[in-house]
């Protein structure tokens, strides 16, 4: 193990190198660029003997990975925002073709208007595609989660692609002290990927046939089943990682000071770190508040959410994206999971921090304070600048 002060982006680069990926293919987009620049350095110097395919678009980058994975190669790519949206068709393809690709997604707002800043719309809007999704809050967690992602993706009961996100600039470009596991440690945790791909040179086999209404549904079920199995496999993989490195990041929904809480805020990504500080400050003032970090968005931790909902009267969800015509995605899924809780908690959706709007400790304090005072479920756009209030539409 070595200690380094590195950005979240470089944490992914080091993880890809330690994972001994066979094929990397990527297209530049701010703020992902330094991930693949660092990987290019590793390949050029010989530290990472991988094939680096420099493509002419993100759509092509993901196709390179899918086809390479079909033959049995371990693959990695990274993107953000518009690049991820351009890949959309192939995100579905990667999951349906059971390609265990690991992809870094630096969460950046989508255009128009143009913005380079933190926003979860890009990855959240891909939640239907069959990719496992993690939302780390620190550079250490980014590195650890990327290594975990390879083993999870390639597990025979899973065989699904995995996205490891990073909040733009907060993680991607901000440096932190990170422990980088040694190559020997990672080799023991992550064995070299077996050469067994979906198709083999010299053998008959077609990956991607069309199929009729008689079997299509059953094929889709196999993907659903794999995503479901990923829950249990993730627990095992993270336990193995803890044995290897001493670090564990708390599973799908790590909680903080929720045991006697009157209100719990659910956050994703770097807002979690700030929220934790705000929770501590409010506790010091006698407020009984707690935090739950939605670390794994897919597969959605419905059981853990239902359990939390049965113990708490108020749940607030900080969504750093919004599904037009509906509500924040995390809120919607939490509401569904909390639906059958014996005590029906008040559920509030706080749309906040879009397009890189800063979430300071005072903002998190403000959100939790509003949650404590709420007398009904609903949505609010926290911190929206406007002069006149309008009739809000959900749930009226």
């Amino acid at each position, binding site marked *: 193990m070595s200690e380094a002060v590195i950005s979240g982006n470089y944490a992914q680069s080091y993880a890809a190198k330690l994972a001994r990926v066979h094929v990397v293919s990527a297209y530049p987009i701010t703020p992902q660029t330094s991930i693949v620049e660092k990987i290019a350095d590793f390949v050029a110097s010989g530290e990472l003997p991988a094939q680096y395919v420099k493509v002419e678009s993100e759509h092509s980058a993901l196709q390179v990975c899918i086809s390479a994975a079909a033959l049995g190669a371990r693959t990695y790519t990274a993107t953000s925002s518009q690049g991820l949206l351009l890949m959309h068709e192939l995100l579905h393809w990667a999951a349906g073709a059971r390609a265990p690709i690991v992809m870094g997604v630096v969460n950046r707002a989508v255009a128009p208007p143009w913005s380079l800043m933190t926003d979860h719309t890009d990855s959240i809007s891909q939640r239907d595609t069959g990719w496992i999704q993690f939302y780390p809050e620190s550079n250490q967690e980014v590195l650890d989660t990327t290594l975990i992602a390879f083993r999870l993706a390639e597990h*025979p009961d899973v065989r699904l692609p995995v996205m490891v996100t990073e909040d733009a600039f907060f993680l991607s470009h901000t440096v932190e002290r990170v422990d980088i596991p040694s190559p020997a440690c990672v080799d023991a945790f992550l064995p070299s990927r077996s050469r067994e791909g979906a198709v083999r040179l010299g053998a008959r086999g077609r*990956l991607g046939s069309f199929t009729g209404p008689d079997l299509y549904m059953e*094929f889709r079920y*196999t993907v659903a089943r794999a995503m479901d199995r990923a829950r249990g496999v993730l627990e095992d993989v993270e336990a193995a990682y803890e044995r290897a490195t001493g670090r564990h990041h708390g599973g799908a929904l790590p909680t903080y000071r929720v045991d006697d809480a009157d209100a719990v805020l659910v956050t994703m990504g770097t807002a979690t770190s700030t929220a934790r500080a705000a929770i501590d400050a409010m506790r010091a003032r006698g407020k009984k508040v707690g935090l739950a970090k939605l670390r794994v968005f897919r597969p959605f931790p419905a059981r853990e959410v239902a359990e939390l909902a049965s113990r708490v009267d108020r749940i607030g969800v900080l969504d750093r994206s919004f599904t037009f015509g509906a509500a924040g995605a995390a809120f919607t899924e939490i509401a569904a999971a909390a639906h059958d809780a014996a005590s029906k908690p008040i559920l509030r959706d706080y749309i906040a921090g879009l397009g890189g709007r800063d979430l300071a400790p005072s903002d998190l304090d403000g959100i939790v304070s509003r949650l404590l005072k709420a007398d009904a479920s609903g949505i609010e756009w926290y911190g929206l600048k406007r002069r006149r209030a309008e009739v809000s539409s959900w749930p009226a």
Partner: protein
Amino acid sequence: MTRYETVEDLPEVPVAEEPSESIRTAGWRTFRPVIDRGKCTKCNVCWKFCPDVAIAIGEDGYPVVRLDYCKGCGICAEECRPLAIEMVQEE
């Protein structure tokens, strides 16, 4: 051939490996080629141009139509220089 009917029958990764010969395309045709061995010079042109791999070359060198697969396109009859192939309507 394996029967694929339920989730349990499906491979985890959707790869198709069975050869297509289990699909007999004979029912597609309206006409079938009939080869007159008296005129056939064993030039192999019919074998060469068959899009359906439905003409094989027998051990004696004469072409043999694989009637399970022939779709009756008529290319063989059209290209046969000695005019040894006639397209005959199926009943």
